[in-house]
């Protein structure tokens, strides 16, 4: 099927389904666009750019099977609002079941380790702001089968297996695994996650990530600590790092700050990446905001330093 036709087919199916019984169907998404001025020493870019910042549109729904079981589905696509990339690219797409025993899904999805970051990444999806610029482990993988337990007094476990379908000679059902143990209450959340042999071919890694966030007054403070290495010992890559972030609301404004650093050692060569980011959101209403941010990432590889800077202003509308 033409890849670009798929979202249209889903939408059309939703229209048709809405006239018959098909459970709950919701079209949702967000548009997040920013005008950025970038000065990247790593690739020489020094210009104004319009960015889509992972804008997306999706269809989600559920169909009740009985009182304790419903089928769930979601098809979400990243959309290129600025037109620089393909109109649609695949994000999390799955089908599954949900009941008082938990949630089971299969498809393409963020790993539990990636999701463990929660809202600690204050500049998620923003150019030069997202923690993927300095940390490994931000994986959305194909062929994932994931289960999450029900909430047990604040505790829950999310576990996923990823069959490699023959790549690298792996033919099992759990060639890659990703597991997160999390606890959450009204003021505090913590998650401990582990990836084993997860990532794209040639970039698979074993990663342990610890994330915590606490509310302090009206504000929030978060931290992330991570340690990992390449799954293939022949690659000889190791990375560790940490991140601290916070936000504080003042009226309709939310002020945000983030500092993170990682140290990657590959074949004996050190690469240190350090991010400092500052930003402010202005809430227009519950579903839209204006924002501005500055992010600097300094890369230092074997004594040779380069800095990437970005300043952006933008808006976000959720629907």
């Amino acid at each position, binding site marked *: 099927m*033409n890849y*670009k*036709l798929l*979202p*249209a087919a889903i*939408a*059309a199916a*939703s*229209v048709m389904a*809405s006239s018959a019984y098909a459970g709950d*169907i*919701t*079209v*949702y*998404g*967000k548009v997040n666009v920013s005008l950025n001025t970038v000065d990247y020493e790593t690739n020489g870019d020094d210009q104004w750019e319009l960015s889509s910042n992972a804008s*997306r*549109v*999706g*269809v*989600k729904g*559920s169909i*009740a099977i009985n*009182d304790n079981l*419903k089928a*769930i589905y*979601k098809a*979400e696509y990243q959309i290129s609002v600025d037109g620089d990339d393909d*109109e649609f690219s695949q994000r*999390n797409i799955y089908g599954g079941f*949900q009941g008082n025993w*938990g*949630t089971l899904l299969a498809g393409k999805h*963020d790993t*539990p380790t990636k*999701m*463990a970051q*929660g*809202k600690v990444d204050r500049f*998620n999806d923003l150019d030069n702001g997202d923690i993927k610029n300095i940390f490994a482990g931000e994986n959305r993988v194909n062929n994932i089968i994931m289960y*999450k337990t029900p909430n047990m007094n604040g505790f*829950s476990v*999310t576990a996923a297996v990823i069959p490699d379908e023959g790549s690298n000679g792996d033919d099992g059902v759990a060639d890659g695994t990703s597991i*997160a143990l*999390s606890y*959450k209450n009204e003021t505090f959340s913590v*998650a401990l996650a582990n990836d084993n042999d997860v990532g794209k071919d040639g970039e698979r890694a074993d990663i342990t990530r610890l994330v915590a966030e606490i509310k302090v007054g009206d504000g929030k403070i978060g931290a992330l600590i991570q340690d990992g290495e390449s799954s293939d010992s022949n690659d000889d890559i190791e990375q560790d790092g940490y991140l601290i972030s916070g936000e504080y609301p003042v009226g*309709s404004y939310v002020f945000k700050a983030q500092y993170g650093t990682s140290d990657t050692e590959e074949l004996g060569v050190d690469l240190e990446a350090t991010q400092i980011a500052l930003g402010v959101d202005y*809430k*227009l*209403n*519950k*579903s*839209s905001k204006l924002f501005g941010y500055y992010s600097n990432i300094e890369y230092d590889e074997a004594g040779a330093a380069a800095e990437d800077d970005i300043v952006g202003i933008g808006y976000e509308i*959720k*629907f």
Partner: protein
Amino acid sequence: MYRLPPYLLILLMSLVYVNPVIADFDVDDADSLDFEAFHRDKNPDKKTWEKKSITTSTNKAKTDALPLSEKEEHQSSDSNTGREYQVRERYSLKRSTETPYSAFYVIEALHKQMASLCPKGWEKIKEWSKPVEKDFYLYYELRCL
């Protein structure tokens, strides 16, 4: 293969979207370990109560509104004839940081609640509005046919 023109794609998407559905979720929740909550109705301002007869210590019967759980809402059936409910939704008459919905919009949402509670139809007993912070709650009281 025939490629769908972009305008037709947008039209199809909008046909779905104009079917009034209130976004009772934060789209970013789907990217967290709370991803399963993306399939739950989480609008904290949407409430349903069933009015039940309560006998007081003086044996004088009166009615009171008791909260109805989400499970009970979903179990509403044809046997609801004669039952009375109160339902509410939050709306705003101006820009609000708490709700994006206008009075017009929540009427649709209330009708969806009422249709779920009373599959055979309903009659409206009362309608009223109460301020909450800078917004309002719109209440309907109804009796199932």
